[in-house]
């Protein structure tokens, strides 16, 4: 990728670059930065949603949040979700992509089948999983008891409920990342594998020394996107658990939504959003740097 930088740009090229970016940039300013600065303004105020009454409180919302057990718990729940989903989902996505990479007559069908959960509406997925997870009547426990595993209650045991959200989350999203991996796999020149085979490298060696290194960029992209999505988790919680049992699946964005629209404390909710924002920002920057250093091939 060093080529792009060695190429000396003329002034007109620079102008073209700016013109190409302009439409997106205007949208960014109008529909992201203006509302965002407004939200930041709210976060410094005691802003109530309907009344609009606000008095300047400085950073009080921020300091109060850090002592708010509900908010701190929501951070813990969110990170638990992220820490599991990021590696597991990425690994499964890669595994599925490898599974359907070989061209057989039936791979087209399976590729579509694996993608179907991405297409299903979140609300329907939540409903079906609620039925599957049910402690006494669900499919999951029927299967578990068939192999002699004791019943688990993913919907009512606060200690394990987040795992239910994780399974649903992976089920719903993994197909998309599989597709991204598949595109990455297809970009790897086949002759690399052929010469490796000639050299007598095993399949495992080929995977470790060719496939994985050449998928670094794809993996970096997938990890960054998955991280951001995981930390912004809320939709699955709304449809599966409504934050329960006993608040054990309340995530940061769920907390923000409840605070803003149920409690109408818009200022407080906005402050929580900016804490979230800075958390993801730091994580993303660290990720980008640590992943970028490995991309030079």
């Amino acid at each position: 990728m060093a080529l792009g930088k060695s190429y000396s740009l003329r002034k007109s090229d620079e102008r073209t670059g700016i013109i190409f970016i302009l439409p997106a940039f205007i949208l960014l300013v109008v529909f992201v930065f203006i509302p965002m600065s407004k939200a930041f303004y709210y976060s410094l105020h005691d802003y109530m949603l309907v009344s609009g009454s606000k008095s300047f409180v400085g950073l009080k919302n921020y300091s109060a949040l850090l002592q708010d057990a509900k908010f701190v718990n929501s951070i813990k729940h969110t990170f638990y979700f992220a820490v599991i989903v990021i590696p597991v989902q990425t690994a499964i996505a890669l595994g599925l992509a490898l599974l359907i990479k070989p061209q057989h007559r039936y791979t087209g069908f399976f590729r579509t089948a694996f993608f179907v959960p991405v297409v299903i509406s979140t609300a329907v997925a939540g409903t079906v999983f609620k039925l599957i997870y049910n402690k006494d009547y669900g499919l999951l426990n029927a299967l578990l008891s068939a192999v002699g595993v004791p019943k688990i209650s993913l919907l009512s045991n606060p200690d394990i409920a987040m795992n239910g959200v994780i399974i649903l989350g992976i089920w719903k999203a993994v197909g998309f990342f599989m597709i991204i991996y598949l595109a990455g796999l297809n970009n790897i020149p086949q002759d690399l594998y052929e010469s490796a085979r000639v050299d007598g490298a095993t399949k495992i060696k080929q995977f470790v020394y060719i496939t994985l290194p050449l998928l670094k960029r794809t993996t970096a992209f997938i990890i960054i996107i998955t991280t951001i999505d995981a930390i912004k988790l809320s939709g699955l919680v709304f449809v599966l658990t409504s934050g329960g049992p006993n608040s054990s699946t309340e995530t940061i964005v769920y907390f923000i939504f409840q605070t803003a629209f149920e409690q109408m404390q818009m200022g407080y909710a906005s402050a929580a959003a900016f804490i979230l924002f800075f958390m993801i920002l730091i994580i993303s920057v660290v990720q980008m740097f640590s992943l970028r250093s490995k991309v030079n091939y």
Partner: protein
Amino acid sequence: MLRIIHFLGMTIIAVVCLLPIIWMILGSMRSYQELIQNAGHLSLNTLVPVEWTLKNFTDVIFDDQHPFLRYVFNTLFVAATVTLLVLLINSLAAFAFAKLSFRGSAAIFVLFMSALIIPGEVMLVPNYMLVNNLGWLNSFKALIIPSTLSVFGIFMLKQFFEEIPTEILESARLDGASWLQIYRAIVLPASVPALITLGIITFLGNWDGYLWPLVVINDDKLQLIQVAIANFTSISGTEWTKVLAANTIATVPILILFLILQRYYVQGITMSGVKG
């Protein structure tokens, strides 16, 4: 032998992926009582209707007050328009970020990325106020224009565009082609799979949109699918069979679209034909 295991493994995963959608489609063809009664214990009838019926579909489609097909059409229009605009606007920007690294482009890219991070739920009220001040409330403008920025799309396309060898672009440039021509004649054709992937995910995102249309649309005739489906829930419960029927109507076209497109989007960057 290995091939049989491979096939079996994929079949099991496919069942896990497909079971809920099969339940949805078959569930839309039975009565509420039957659906709920059979959800409680496991048998063939948990999935397969005892008495097949199309009543849910007729109830959903032929409701004079809430014409569901109208909502499907609205959503189709909004999602398709947004998808086209997203592909155009964001591929241009992604191309500039990938290949025209002008002064400050890295910093501007970080600015864009920061937009990916802020959760939409917090932006709901400020964005509502903004759209309100622009006079766009209760129109498709409010649904379409703010959605045409896809930072995720810029990020993803940038990844793909970076795979295009710079030498090709450079030589085209030396031959006197403008960047817009290069973008149209080389970059876009080479990245059809990436564009289709982004198109699908954008379309789905808008197809599944709920909170934003709920808040900005006040006229029932302009409403979108997911809001209409949510209306089947009231204090006395959810009309599950109608929800399943409505979702079936909403999902099947997408699946067909996906089936048609699926042979394109998995290919990665195809440089065949432009290498010369």
